[in-house]
């Protein structure tokens, strides 16, 4: 629509330059300001003419998805609930909104409410200083269908949908439905399911891994011989009756858009409103870490996922290093282990000291044999930060060595005794001492 509008404007200008002002033909029936005005009126009316309110959600750039309940009112205020926290799921908060004639008609949440928490650049709100969760409070209107308005975040370009609620749904929201569904779903998944997957066509399986903290769902497509065909990631958000995937996922011939509870089972619900059964197996995972993780594999990086309860590791290295940096007055911005090409790997730390940012990294040569990896440190970052931060990076050197000799490790899943851990814990485990390991979350990039 933007492009059409621009073409139209360009057309107007051309005619004007050609001194044919009176000959302008309104190709789209109305003058542009009139057509924008019509759209503004449409959105403004739609928002307030929803007697039971709206539900909506989006993905953030830095931390998964978030879901909301909205009740837009004529006096330009809006009441909200959010799955951001337990209290935001229970307590209605009111703020103002407006539908503004910017470049495109834009819905702006223009005073503070739950939806602005994700955009708040203050670290107190939970995100990174200066950028928060990388989210928007201005949403450009795109289109609509029967019960849904489609918007796009102005800066971070994440899609944002508003869906009309029924009377029953609204009552559910207003009676703690967000928190209840979240509790019911996690209890069910934690207690009744082991490793979850969907059956795929041709004997393949699709592993479902839910990262509750990051609010992301991983789908790993495994073929009938156990190899990984592809990996699909999407963030999800909570509604009063489902976990909604921000981007639907294809399973056999269906597009699964949410997870719902049916009786005592969890089902994938597709866009045509049919259900797909979620299956479970105790162990092991459908695929091996060595198939999933590497330079030419679907998962490229291993990052911290916080300390995981019930893991038999001597040291939670990512967490320990973070603590040590913090104790020295420095903050880690980014830390990961990755194989940069077929023969070298890096342990990378980007940290802030005072107002300056530094990089400390150790590089390794490696070779792989089946599920084994042999690592030898060959260098450090261009400067000398790895050495000056020796105290802080000691847990890494303790595991991967200081370059004096090559060490043998194994790619492995680590089993947590905590049933709420639904995202598999991948590890690089020392052969010499199997409780020494680097464990974390596998990331696509």
């Amino acid at each position, binding site marked *: 629509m933007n492009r059409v509008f621009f073409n139209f404007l360009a057309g107007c200008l051309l005619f*004007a*330059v050609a*001194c044919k*002002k009176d000959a302008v033909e309104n190709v789209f029936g109305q*003058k542009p*300001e*009139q057509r*924008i*005005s019509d759209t*503004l009126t449409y959105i*403004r009316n739609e928002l307030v003419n929803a007697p039971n309110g709206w539900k909506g959600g989006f993905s953030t750039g830095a931390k998964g998805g978030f879901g909301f309940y909205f009740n837009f009112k004529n*006096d*330009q*205020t809006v009441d909200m609930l959010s799955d951001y926290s337990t209290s935001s799921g229970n307590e209605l908060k*009111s*703020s*103002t909104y*407006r*539908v*503004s*004639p910017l470049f495109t008609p834009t819905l*702006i*949440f*223009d*005073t*503070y409410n739950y939806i*602005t928490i994700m*955009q*708040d*650049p*203050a670290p107190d*709100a939970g995100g990174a*200083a*200066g*950028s*928060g969760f*990388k989210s928007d*409070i*201005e949403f450009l209107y795109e289109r609509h269908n029967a019960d849904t308005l489609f918007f796009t975040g*102005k*800066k971070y370009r994440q899609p944002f949908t508003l869906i009309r609620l029924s009377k029953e749904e609204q009552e559910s929201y207003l009676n703690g439905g967000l928190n209840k569904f979240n509790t019911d779903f996690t209890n069910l998944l934690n207690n009744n399911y082991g490793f979850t997957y969907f059956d795929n066509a041709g004997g393949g399986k699709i592993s479902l891994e839910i990262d509750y903290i990051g609010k992301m769902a991983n789908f790993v497509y495994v073929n009938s011989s156990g190899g990984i065909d592809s990996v699909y990631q999407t963030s999800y958000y909570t509604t009063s009756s489902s976990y909604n995937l921000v981007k639907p996922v294809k399973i056999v011939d269906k597009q699964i858009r949410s997870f719902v509870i049916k009786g005592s089972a969890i089902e994938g619900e597709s866009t045509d409103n049919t259900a797909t059964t979620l299956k479970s197996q105790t162990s092991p995972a459908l695929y091996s870490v060595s198939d999933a993780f590497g330079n030419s594999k679907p998962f490229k990086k291993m990052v911290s996922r916080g300390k995981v309860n019930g893991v038999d590791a001597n040291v939670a290295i990512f967490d320990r290093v973070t603590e040590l940096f913090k104790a020295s007055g420095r903050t880690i911005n980014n830390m990961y282990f990755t194989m940069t090409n077929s023969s070298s790997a890096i342990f990378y730390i980007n940290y*802030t000291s*005072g*107002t300056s940012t530094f990089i400390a990294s150790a590089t390794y040569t490696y070779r792989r044999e089946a599920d084994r990896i042999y690592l030898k440190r060959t260098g450090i970052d261009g400067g000398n930060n790895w050495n000056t931060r020796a105290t802080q990076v000691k847990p890494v050197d303790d595991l991967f060595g200081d370059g004096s000799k090559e060490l043998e490790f194994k790619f492995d899943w680590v089993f947590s005794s905590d049933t709420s851990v639904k995202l598999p814990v991948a590890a690089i485990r020392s052969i010499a001492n199997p409780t020494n390991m680097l464990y974390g979350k596998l990331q696509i990039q």
Partner: protein
Amino acid sequence: MMTIASCSKDSDKLDVDMNSFNTDPEGNSEVDQWLMSELTDPFNIEVIYRFDRNLTDVSKDIAPVDIDKVKPMMEAVLNLYLKPYQKVAGNKFIKTLAPKQYLLYGSVSYNTNGSVTLGTADGGRKVTLYGVNSFNAATVEGDNGVRRKLRTIHHEFTHILNQNVPIPSDFEAVTKGDYYADWTNSSNTDAVAKSLGFVSRYARGQYTEDFAEMTAHLLVEGQVWFDNYVVSAPISAQQKLRKKEEIVVRYFKDAFDVDFRVLQTEVQNAFKTLYSAKDPADLTQTLANWINTNKVATITFDPSSPIYNQYGISSTFKTIWNNFKNAVSTQEPSGNRRYPQTLQLRFSSDNIMTLRVTYLNNAQTSTLFADYDFDLKATPSTGEVTFSKRMPEGTTTAHGNGATIYFKDYFERYLLPYFTNRVFIADWLPSGIGSTDPLYRTYGGFYEKGVTANYFYGPIELK
């Protein structure tokens, strides 16, 4: 546009239907009405609190303000900035010069150098306040308290004044060499900024910020705070801060015919009556500062005074005195004996203290003095006072008495180590004389730092 204009001569007038021109909807909430009646109508000030990206740095993520914070924030602006100026400088002044637009944002604005922006003033017309969501109208002090936010308001308004009448050129000259663009650098600590004669770290950024910081601190933190700040700075910095203060006061008079002192009192009164603010303890009214500013002549310990029966005496100090007195008065041969009566600390300047023993001669017929000079160092911000033996010794008769064999050994054995081996805290002793007592600040003394049971005191005689 040129083309259109030149080609449209034949049309009578530009024919645009403004009815279909699209605008933001106007609000009419309780907050909107309050802003209209309290700020827009009387002062012609518009308050924009609903988020608008284009009115701030478009590339940054800045959170909108919480609507519950709008009224408390603007109430503070009204009470602690607009009304005092209106009262002291007049309606015309405030209506002409006050910013016409206030923009409120909820979060601070993060800069690439790690600092955050709390406020800006553009073109003398618009003031943007960031971080309003953390504002807490119920607390006065601290980062989220009323003072901190109002400092930003007054700081930005000072910029507007400066855009109308430039800062006097002698202001920049006071600390010319010490301005430091990279003021957020960790080397520019609060202490460094103070020692160079700046009222805050930010004041070091450039002289325009320095001027705004000086004005804002004087008005918002108050004179007692400023005097404390000055008195706890090194002497060289004290002179610079006082010079800057004088220029600020003069600037308001010369440029706008505003009595800065009256304005300051007005702002401070509003803080005290409306926000229950309290002045900090006045560091200038401490014994250490009295000594440091050369106000005190003597403090005398006379063991026969009834004051020690009433308010007590330190047994540690009493033992020292008695040991000294007994050693001098019972020495052999008996012809050497002298009879110490009192001990007096004589502050001849802010860095020399003469310890005087008043005694009776061997025949106990006449009163004489034995004097010993000490170097003195008083730190008003902490109250700490240290003494060290001053060399060479003085040359007066009394100093000669002190050097005789009747005294010298005993002085060196008892009194010298007592005064030089510890850090004292100068204070209004005895503590039994409270601040409401008429005798308050007529007695004073010293206690050992960390050992409050070791003290001495006596009546103060001023110069």
